[in-house]
């Protein structure tokens, strides 16, 4: 690595001064948050150290099965997290739809990204496969989470409108159109906003990391553009799959709203 400053343990420890400052402020002002701050900074440190060693191991072993295992763990964690984070409980059918749209949407965009855009080889190269999968899955998870809440709220709040449309002979698809569109819109909006602010309001984590580790900013930006587009694709794909399959779970095969 050209000219990169390797951080010693001592240097990293010195950064904990920031936490110490925060603790002092909390103590002086009498805000009872010291325990949370301490626990979360220790958690962050341990998690990252652990991930660091896991990644070193994965990168060195270059094992396709391990790469796939990591992918499986990330997908499962994301799906579990979406279901947990939903404000109201999901029906079994809707849970399955969440899982299906996550897996289909992220895998399609991941495969396209790795093999068409970056063209990695071997196909399972963990150095590319894992971080990119992580970014696509993580962002899609946030998108579907928003979409789930909006779809559930919309079908509840707009129930009379949806039903009035059915009474007039609308198909469930037309009757739910506004709810579905608004769920899709709110789910992809943060991703679109992120594109707009990119590079001006903030430098994204991936790019910052690459630049700090000595990669030329131009290369880092090329990656950033590509990954941002990949994220947009993956989020849109997962969310559109989810809302398109999801609204159907509110109707039965007689085009009636299901009663709960």
């Amino acid at each position, binding site marked *: 690595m050209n000219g990169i400053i390797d951080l010693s343990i001592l240097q990293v420890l010195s950064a904990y001064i920031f936490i110490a400052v925060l603790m002092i402020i909390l103590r002086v002002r009498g805000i009872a948050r010291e325990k949370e701050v301490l626990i979360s900074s220790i958690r962050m440190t341990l998690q990252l150290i652990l991930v660091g060693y896991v990644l070193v191991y994965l990168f060195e072993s270059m094992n396709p099965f391990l790469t796939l295992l990591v992918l499986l763990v990330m997908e499962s964690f994301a799906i579990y997290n979406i279901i947990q984070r939903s404000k109201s409980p999901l029906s079994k059918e809707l849970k399955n739809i969440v899982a299906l749209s996550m897996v289909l949407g992220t895998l399609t965009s991941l495969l396209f990204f790795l093999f068409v855009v970056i063209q990695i080889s071997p196909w399972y190269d963990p150095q590319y496969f894992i971080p990119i999968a992580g970014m696509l899955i993580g962002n899609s998870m946030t998108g579907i989470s928003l979409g789930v809440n909006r779809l559930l709220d919309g079908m509840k709040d707009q129930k*009379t409108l949806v039903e009035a*449309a*059915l009474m*007039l*002979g609308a198909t469930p698809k*037309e009757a739910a159109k506004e709810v579905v569109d608004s769920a899709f819109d709110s789910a992809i909006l943060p991703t679109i906003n992120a594109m707009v602010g990119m590079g001006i309001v903030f430098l994204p984590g991936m790019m910052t990391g690459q630049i700090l580790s000595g990669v030329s900013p131009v290369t880092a930006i090329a990656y950033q553009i590509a990954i941002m587009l990949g994220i947009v694709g993956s989020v849109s794909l997962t969310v559109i799959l989810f809302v398109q399959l999801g609204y159907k779970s509110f109707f039965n095969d007689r085009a009636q*709203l299901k009663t709960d």
Partner: protein
Amino acid sequence: MFSIEQITYKNIISVSKLTIHEKEITCIVGESGSGKTTLLRMLNHLISPDQGRITFQNQDLMDIDPIELRRKVVMLPQTPVIFQGTLRDNLEIGLRFSDKSSPSEKELAETLKRVKLQKDLDENAQNLSGGEKQRLALGRILLMEPEVLLLDEPSSALDDETESLIIQTFVDYAKEHSKTLIMVTHSKALAKNFADRILQVRGGEVHEWNH
């Protein structure tokens, strides 16, 4: 037109036998909470009875495409529903939902007149008063020209005079175009005046009411 046999829905309503005739004006009366809306919703196939069967033109509702059925048997909900947009949007939306062609400017103006709305077609429909919204929702259905009109308390938000005028309009329309009109109403006087047949919902059962 409709024939109902041995149906029950939850423990709200049960009907042993009931026929609703084609091209007649049927009024449904009964106390609040007696199950009038529930009965109407079953005819529109928004809900299905737990047991028994309902037929429309001698065909079991369960064997008819639900969308096709609702395009012939249109229902006006008890609380008028206004969609986003102008009066024009709200009138046209019924035809759009049922895949029919858009009405002409003349038809739209005509419809407003028939439901006694003196408003601009391009006004925002959300600003209408409660009674005006109800009339707009009625106009929407009139424009669709369905075979059967299911109206759930179509005049609940109207004053006596407007109520008579509007109901008269629908009754005339139904007679003139040989449509079937099924109407829930809280007013027995209104039912007596206009109905060919009155059904009373009481204690979870439906009986013909002879006056």
